[in-house]
């Protein structure tokens, strides 16, 4: 429905001559009506680009990309540019180019000043402004949780804790009744899978049966919460949010380096119950925490590993538009960030203000600035600071060696040059170092130093950033500030030895070391840097070739010492010059002897150094705000937006980020006690995993398009209590699984008939009974391994390759792994984007492309076929049969099998059915009662029983 407002037009009109107006009516208006108004007028069904072309005023006002015309200047007018088809990204009309004479007429008309007769103008009500404040005030999720009084309930004996009180109150209001407690075995199986992703062992089952005290339940929960299996289970939930993968997908599916370290970080974090506010901060800005968490066992900085989660998205080689590629990566990062931590779909605001939520396009680019200012790096972590300790010794040896030099015979030569970067007056602003190899300062100007890593030619002049001063073995990186590339070539004056490399990173694109298509000459690998000479000499290296395409782009230089060799960087310039450097003289005389001794000693110290542990991580780069991309196009830029959190979350009140990206301030703004989303979103996720459906069922979307909470007061109470309890995941889980609500049976109270249910609560949102839940994909497979006795107990470490079937084809095909993955839990199977494990895929394991807090749940014959015919299942059935056959008595075998697989005794009817089955199968095989094949079939049958994959 359009509302027309009639406005009288002022001024200019009278100025047009009759012929000018005639020209408009004859040559211009028909073209506009015929070719433009379908999308750009009040009559348009959908107005495109917020552009109306049905009045002169509207044209001057313009749309998303600015004014359509500049009267008198056709070449400066967007309208003319687009109809000329000069800009491949903005061609109008989109389907067919206008005939040449119409284009000429439009040009002429603009040149005339765009004459237009006086006429009534209509304003389109669709021009309405996006009102962020109004949206914020109207939707619940933006308001902080408040403390509600506990609701009163009539059956006070039923409740165990406040959770139950909230649940029961709603049930009573709806005239529903909770149901009886689940059978003990059912509860035990439920809670064991929920907390550890594995079934209870027969011993755990019998122990629990024998303990008839109420305390038995608590004991079970406390045992499960301290089991290492807990972290594995909950890490996998979190991996769904972080679109965890170990390869980049796309054409060649290149590996993501060290991804599994992040998976192991998660396992440890959940096992150690790292407070959630700390966990969030580590994910967003673990590299920037003033006092990072150090893992007691490994002695490694844990906090920084979490930042790897930003970097697990897809990546492609050879993008034809590298900036567009960066925009897509950042878009995905913001999508994952905002859905996971905030339950918001901020990415929907990339091209236009959010259609429903209080999120503006500016908000999107405010967040994008943080990522624009951050870099993807591989960090060299120092276990228990052992490398630093060894380095102290090496540093002192290096100082000693430098003192031995006879200053009279060797003197540095320096020639001033027109360089882009030089180190003659120290490390320039904005350069960053990582790892141990590069010292904090360049070699002192006008001096000679000794590089322990270059024993044959140890003398280095001043103003050099040298990663070999303390030996060859140290690893590290040196990075320049981000700058705009001005020339087609860049020259680096440096000396290199061993396993070192240099990249120029263009618009954050990091794939050139994997594949150089379109990026030739932007990466110098060890081979390119390798010296013909026996000893590394300073010389000019060129970055060029494809680099010419990227003039005007934002770039930075990255010098990497991978731990065997060194890089000594003297200077970086657009032109090479006759740079003379220190003449490297051979050693001689007494100094030689003293020096040799020091060098030998250094070698020994170096040898004892441990290797660093490498992890993928985020690091601050050069601070940069992003510009609004009009309609999401990086070729159409709008205002600059300061880096900040969302407006509706108080982002505009945040202090301006000064040094660095400002991610730490962003992280801190997420974990305030009164934050309306962080705690709510998290407790809701935990609820979802324990009860099958979240209090807000759309766990990743608390916005207007998401679902309303079924128990808003309970959600608030849980969020506030969670914060009050120190953001402890384990305390939260303990409280939930020990509730009466969680202990309900899946069979409803007999008073609650199907008819009542259909009327009042068809989806069981109020929890009048427990939900029947299918195991998650990983648990389906892990359950089989646990039952058969094949489960490998190893926690963490590099992933096991997926077993490839003949249907898994394509480029970048990895090596196939063992059929049962060495018995390792499913979260340890390699996650290669283009070769995902088919068994898990059949049971709805999501493909890792963005946050997936709620998996889809299908119930399809492909799952039956998998359990019926997958050789893995048969193999495990055989293993289990071997275990059962140790038991001499068939009936006892059946009993043992049920206890292992279903945490219960078989019923008499089940014994009968199975004995019947066994005897038929014996006949079929013409085999005896202890035949392995018969019992393999028995085990296979139980794996296929619905009870194997459904919890009640």
């Amino acid at each position, binding site marked *: 429905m359009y509302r027309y407002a009639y406005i009288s037009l002022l001024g200019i009109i009278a100025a047009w001559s009759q012929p000018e107006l005639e020209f408009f009516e004859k040559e211009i208006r028909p073209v506009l009506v015929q070719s433009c108004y379908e999308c750009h007028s009040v009559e348009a069904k959908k107005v495109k680009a917020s552009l109306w072309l049905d009045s002169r005023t509207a044209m001057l006002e313009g749309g998303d990309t600015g004014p359509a015309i500049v009267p008198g200047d056709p070449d400066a007018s967007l309208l003319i540019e687009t109809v000329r088809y000069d800009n*491949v990204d903005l061609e109008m009309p*989109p*389907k*067919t*180019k206008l005939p040449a004479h119409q284009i000429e007429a439009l040009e002429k008309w603009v040149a005339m000043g765009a004459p237009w007769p006086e006429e009534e103008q209509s304003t389109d009500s669709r021009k309405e402004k996006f009102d962020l404040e109004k949206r914020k005030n109207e939707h619940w999720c933006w308001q902080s949780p408040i403390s509600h009084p506990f609701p009163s309930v009539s059956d006070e004996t039923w409740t165990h804790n406040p959770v139950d009180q909230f649940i029961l109150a709603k049930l009573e209001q709806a005239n529903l009744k909770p149901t009886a407690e689940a059978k003990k075995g*059912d509860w035990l199986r439920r809670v064991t899978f929920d907390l550890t992703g594995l079934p209870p062992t027969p011993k755990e089952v019998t122990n629990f049966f024998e303990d008839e005290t109420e305390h038995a339940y608590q004991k079970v929960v406390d045992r499960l919460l301290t089991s290492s299996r807990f972290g594995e289970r909950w890490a996998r939930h979190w991996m769904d949010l972080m679109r965890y993968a170990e390869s980049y997908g*796309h*054409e060649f599916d290149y590996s993501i380096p060290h991804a599994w370290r992040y998976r192991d970080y998660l396992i440890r974090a959940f096992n150690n119950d790292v407070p959630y506010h700390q966990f969030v901060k580590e994910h967003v800005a673990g590299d920037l925490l003033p006092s990072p968490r150090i893992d007691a066992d490994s002695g490694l900085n844990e906090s920084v590993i979490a930042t790897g989660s930003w970097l697990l998205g*897809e990546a*492609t080689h050879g993008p*034809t538009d590298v900036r567009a590629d960066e925009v*897509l990566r950042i878009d995905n990062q913001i999508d994952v960030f905002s*859905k996971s931590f905030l339950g918001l779909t901020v990415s*929907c605001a990339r091209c236009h203000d959010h259609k429903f939520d209080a999120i503006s396009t500016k908000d999107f680019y405010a967040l994008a600035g943080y990522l624009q200012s951050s870099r993807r790096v591989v960090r060299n972590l120092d276990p228990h600071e052992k490398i630093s300790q060894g380095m102290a010794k090496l540093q002192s040896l290096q100082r000693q060696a430098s003192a031995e030099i006879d200053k009279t015979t060797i003197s540095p030569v320096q020639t001033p040059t027109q360089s882009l970067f030089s180190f003659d007056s120290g490390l320039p602003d904005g350069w960053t170092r990582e790892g141990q190899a590069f010292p904090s300062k360049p070699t002192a100007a006008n001096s000679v130093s000794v590089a322990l890593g270059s024993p044959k030619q140890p003398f280095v002049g001043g103003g050099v950033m040298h990663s070999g001063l303390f030996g060859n073995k140290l690893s590290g990186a040196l990075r320049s500030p981000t700058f705009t590339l001005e020339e087609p070539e860049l020259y680096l004056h440096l000396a290199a030895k061993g396993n070192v490399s240099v990249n120029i990173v263009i618009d954050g694109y990091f794939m050139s070391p994997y594949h150089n*298509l379109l990026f030739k000459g932007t990466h110098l690998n060890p081979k390119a840097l390798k010296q013909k000479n026996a000893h590394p000499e300073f010389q000019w290296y060129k970055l060029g070739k*494809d680099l010419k*395409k990227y003039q005007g782009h934002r770039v930075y230089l990255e010098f990497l010492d991978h731990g065997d060799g060194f890089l000594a960087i003297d200077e970086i310039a657009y032109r090479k010059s006759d740079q003379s450097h220190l003449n490297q003289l051979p050693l001689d005389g007494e100094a030689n002897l003293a020096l040799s001794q020091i060098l030998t000693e250094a070698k020994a110290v170096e040898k004892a150094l441990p290797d660093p542990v490498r992890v993928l991580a985020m690091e601050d780069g050069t601070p940069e705000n992003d510009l609004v991309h009009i309609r999401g196009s990086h070729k159409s830029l709008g205002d600059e937006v300061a880096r900040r959190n969302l407006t509706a979350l108080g982002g505009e009140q945040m202090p301006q980020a000064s040094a660095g990206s400002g991610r730490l301030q962003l992280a801190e703004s997420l974990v305030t006690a009164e934050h309306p989303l962080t705690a709510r979103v998290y407790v809701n996720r935990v609820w979802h995993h324990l009860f099958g459906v979240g209090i807000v069922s759309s766990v*990743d979307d608390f916005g207007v*398009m998401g679902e309303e909470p079924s128990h808003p007061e309970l959600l608030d109470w849980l969020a506030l209590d969670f914060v009050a309890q120190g953001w402890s995941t384990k305390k939260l889980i303990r409280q939930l699984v020990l509730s009466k609500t969680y202990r309900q049976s*899946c*069979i*409803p109270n007999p008073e609650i008939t199907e008819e009542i249910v*259909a009327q009042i609560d068809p989806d069981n949102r109020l929890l009048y*009974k427990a939900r*029947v839940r299918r195991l998650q994909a990983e648990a389906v497979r892990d359950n089989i391994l646990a039952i058969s006795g094949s489960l490998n107990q190893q926690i963490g470490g590099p992933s096991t390759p997926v077993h490839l079937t*003949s*249907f*898994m084809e394509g*480029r970048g095909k990895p090596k196939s792994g063992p059929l049962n993955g060495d018995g390792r839990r499913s979260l340890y199977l390699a996650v290669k984007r*283009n*070769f995902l494990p088919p068994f898990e*895929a*059949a049971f709805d394991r*999501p493909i890792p492309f*963005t*946050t997936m807090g709620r998996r*889809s749940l*299908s*119930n*399809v*014959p*492909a799952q*039956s*076929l*998998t359990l*019926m*015919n997958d*050789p893995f299942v048969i193999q495990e059935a055989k293993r289990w049969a071997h275990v059962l056959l140790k038991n001499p008595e068939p009936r006892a075998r059946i009993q043992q099998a049920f206890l292992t697989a279903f945490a219960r005794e078989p019923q008499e*009817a*089940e014994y009968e*059915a*199975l004995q019947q*089955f066994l005897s038929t*199968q014996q006949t*079929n095989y013409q085999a005896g009662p202890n035949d392995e094949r018969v019992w393999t079939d028995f085990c296979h*049958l139980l794996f*296929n029983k*619905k009870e194997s994959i*459904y919890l*009640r």
Partner: protein
Amino acid sequence: MHCRRYAPAPVTRRQILQQGAHGIGAVALASLLNDRSFGASTSILNGKLPHHAPRAKNIIFLYMDGGPSHVDTFDYKPTLAKYNGQNASQVMGKLEPTQFDNVGTIMGSPWDFKQYGECGHWVSSLFPHVAKHADKLAMVKSCTSQFSEHTFANYFLHTGSGLQGRPSMGAWVGYGLGSANQNLPGFVVMNGGMIPPGGLDNFSSSFLPATYQGSIFKAGKEPLANILPQEKKSALQRNKLDALKSLDELALGNYGHESAIESAIANYETAYRMQTAVPDLMAIDGESEATKKLYGLDSNFTGTQTFGRQCLIARRLVERGVRFIELTCPKVGGDRWDQHDKLREGHENNCRAVDQPIAGLLEDLQKRGLLEDTLVVWAGEFGRTPFAQGKDGRDHNPFGFTMWLAGGGVKGGTSYGETDEFGYKAVQNRIEMHDLHATMLHLLGIDHEQSTFRFGGRDMRLTDVHGHVIHEILA
């Protein structure tokens, strides 16, 4: 339209019953529960499909992986011969960046073009068999893609988005219409040996339920993953499944008669039947010699045999009611249709593999009265440049290329859209992938704007927020 609210599709039988109470009539509901489509019964979208009378029931998508050259096949450009060997940017003006950035001179097509049929479509000598069916084909010569790199462009062609992680068009069709055959999946990919860049995600169901993902069928002993019983005798498996069923039914009460469990039990019967249905489908021994010959199975070129077999099975899938059948290319040496060099040899081999089988398929479908219900689409992810890459190749060209459609609801013999005189860019009636998708769904009776699935706060569509049905090529 993507902004409208829809109830998520029902997943369980109980949910369907509930939804049925609001929407579908009792009769339709009863048939839905008794005659379950493959997988879950989630074939209905709010019970309102089809949105209009369908013109086709099935789609066969002939996916020409790698980007066939339109100027050497269906888009005749005599101008190229005129400027053959001349500097491309001097003759043609500003050129867009290409994938390999190795622009050679303008290259006339090495193949002769002739007009065919009453409609007079120009077809090159690469497609002598398909040319005979010119009057069945609707050419769309103004196709464009947003991407000039295979993986992006493949995802774009299949899912309407250049990024990994969106449902493939076949999955959307299944989500909209379900399968008419409960023993076969609704979306079958006949794999000729090449998986396109981007991998199996080109056929993914992504956030749609897993049942809608493309099932990869291969030639050979095991045509579909896990379709072969592991038991040596069928009685062994049958006994197992019978015992399973009685045990599962014994335990039903423990779950409060949960519908998900009932469905899961029923799935085993479907799975059991699939074990027979799939090998039956693949067994082409019963086809007449004439039919086999029609598809080129007697060819001495293995590529033709492979693709011929795929085409023949595609027809058998259509007969069995499978909604969406995609064929990938056979290995013929070289790299798919992606002739960055040796255009002549590469395209000749590719065409030799697919030409006769496609012609055979069109003829066979027509003879059996299936063509009017079957939409056949021939498409690559982009076309190729009118100028050479290096000496004798052509680079990727997403700015203008040709696809054709035939069969159900399509006006054969039409031609829609044009590229410029060089075949470089579409200049008239430009078509986007979203338009192709909208048109395909339209022919199946689905309004692409109404076929949505709520994910990540949005009602997602195959056509994103775009797409116009190309009415001009419809009968």
